[in-house]
């Protein structure tokens, strides 16, 4: 899913009105909220039904990795916010550096996820596996939700990463600068959304056992 704005260059000027672009981005974020919202509703209902099983299943998850990733995302959220400050202060190199930090942190997040998923796979615990099929129903449900929610979130991390890479390149080339940084702002907004969703995923999946 691309952001609406960077596809857009009206014939009249190369840059699109800032308020317009930002509003478009916010509206897009609302749809993301409801997308995950549907999953949260399912989670809530199933948790009410299979409290015990969820409890057991959640113990399987590595809260440490979860916590690490929370910190990683929060810090990355800050760096991307700071890069915006930098661009507004015309500190181009700092801005590039900060976005790069964000991307690095995104990388760390994905590496963590790689190990986390890898561990599950080594236990043959993945949707469709025989091990998973033989678990109690509530645990199947928990892992199903776990994989769907974190998987969808991971997808957003990847998209956010790509978006921020584009932003970084444009900052470098000067296309994004003190005057025109709408894409930068929107990229940052998207990244914060990724963080926001994780803020809920973390306690719900890893902690509440």
């Amino acid at each position, binding site marked *: 899913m691309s952001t609406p704005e960077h596809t857009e260059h009206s014939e009249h000027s190369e840059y699109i009105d800032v308020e317009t672009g930002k509003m478009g981005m916010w509206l897009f974020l609302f749809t993301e909220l409801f*997308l995950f919202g*549907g999953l949260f509703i399912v989670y809530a209902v199933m948790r009410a039904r299979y409290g015990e099983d969820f409890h057991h299943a959640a113990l399987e998850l590595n809260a440490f990795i979860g916590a690490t990733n929370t910190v990683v995302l929060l810090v990355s959220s800050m760096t991307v916010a700071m890069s915006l400050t930098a661009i507004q202060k015309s500190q181009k190199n700092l801005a590039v550096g900060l976005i790069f930090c964000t991307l690095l942190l995104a990388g760390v997040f994905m590496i963590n996820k790689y190990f986390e998923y890898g561990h599950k796979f080594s236990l043959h615990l993945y949707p469709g596996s025989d091990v998973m099929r033989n678990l109690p129903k509530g645990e199947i449900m928990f892992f*199903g939700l776990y994989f*769907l929610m974190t998987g969808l979130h991971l997808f957003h991390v990847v998209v956010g990463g790509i978006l921020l890479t584009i932003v970084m390149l444009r900052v470098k080339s000067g296309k994004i600068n003190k005057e025109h940084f709408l894409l930068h702002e929107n990229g940052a907004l998207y990244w914060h959304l990724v963080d926001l969703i994780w803020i809920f995923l973390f306690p719900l999946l890893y902690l509440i056992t």
Partner: protein
Amino acid sequence: MNNQVSAEPLNYLNHKTGLWSWLTATDHKRIGLLYLYAISTFFLTAAVLGLLMKIEKSSIGPTIMTAQTYNALFTLHGIIMIFIVVIPGLAAVFGNICLPIMIGAKDVAFPKLNLFSFYVYITGACLGLYSQFANGHSPDAGWTFYVPYSAEVNSNIILALLAAFTLGFASILTGLNFIVTIHRMRAPGMTWFRMPLFPWSLYATAWIQLLATPVVGITLLMVVAERTLHVGFFDPKLGGDPVLYQHLFWIYSHPAVYVMILPAMGVVTEIFPTFSQKPVFGYLPIVFSSLAIALVGYFVWGHHMFTSGMSYESRWFFSFITFLVAIPSAIKVFNWLSTMYGGSVDLQPPLLYAISFIFLFTIGGFTGLTLGAVATDIQVHNTDFVVAHFHYIIFGGMGFGFFAAMHYWYPKIYGRMYHIKWAKIAWGFLFTGFNVLYFPMFIMGIQGMPRRYYDYDPKFQLGQTISSVGAVIMFIGLIAMIVNLVYHVRRGAKAPANPWHGVTLEWQIPSPPPHENFDEIPVITREPYVFDNPYTKEK
């Protein structure tokens, strides 16, 4: 650019030519037309399927098809009509064509995104059609895809689900575009309450598209996951909850019915003042009733689930809110009538469709109330009564609204005029056929004729046959209407800029409009419906 050979002034239709210029057009009017052609094609396809179903049901037992085919037909008919025709319908066609002009803008806020959503739409629509012909069985779960049936049956459900998902995405993008356009692109001086009512209704619609669609998107994806990965969110065999699916489905699909009807209400709200040469009666109440419908419409989804074993308290709650959502519709109906009252009413084809809209929508709406009361819904739920209710309100409401819009803005869009008398005759057939087709279904529904039934009890024979005759009458009407409209796109008499003496902005520019609508962005100084223009004076 002035080396144009033809005498016609440059407009959005001829300023660039060639197929490629159409396929890559970012001009909102051209995108609107692309939608119009796509949607009409799909509408006709699905309408023919409807006709086939009626022929099948004209007599007991197998008439022209097997049960398998029938089940696939109503599923495809429902999917096309709902997801491909009526949900995008008015907003994508006439919203695109008229919204920017009516608020005095040169285009929508994100023209390229607009084109992109058209292609997303086409992709989804083709996927939907493809699901019918791909290897294996055509999908047969009904447009509601209730789990566990849809999670277990061995037909191309996955393709159909992905089609619905993709179409939802297109719908979200259109909604997003419209909201931003309305917020940011209004001409100077056009305050919120100087905005015409069709844009207002699109605004309310867009919020529903934006916020309700993602929920069904994720739900359908979960069913796909269920089928491919064997994690049962909804299938009880895997520990899931089938009623939860219904909740999530209707959290979207009830608001979606207002996505269908709100723009149609907007259209007739434009038509009544124009053909009565009189300001809209109760501008503010109409605005707020649109917003109220959009908002309250989010909270009534459970009325589709009165028999699903939902808790007692929920049934109470949903029934109650359902009745509240009827009030804003009532307000609109009365305001429309009062708009005509005291006017100088000219019964042209658009108005003819608009008043039949009121009639059919009222019947559809009142039967909606019958469905909203729990006790009566228990009797008529999933019977032909429901089928008649929503055909009255969707086809009679949104469908006739669409036809009204078509006849109203046709001269603006093409710069040509259709044959008025033919249009009225076609209307006669459509309207008669419509009532003959669907009214008997109310009666059969109350008597217990269930829906999605391939075959039926002999006691329903008479009703079913009458209803099938109605379908044939409608068929004639539709053909007549289409021939009239298509034929005159090129051969019709030249239409003036303002054939109906309307006062909203689209009538103040040439027909067809120039590429960027306005040479100079107009400055708005007054309310939208003030009828003191020269056209009324000269009469």
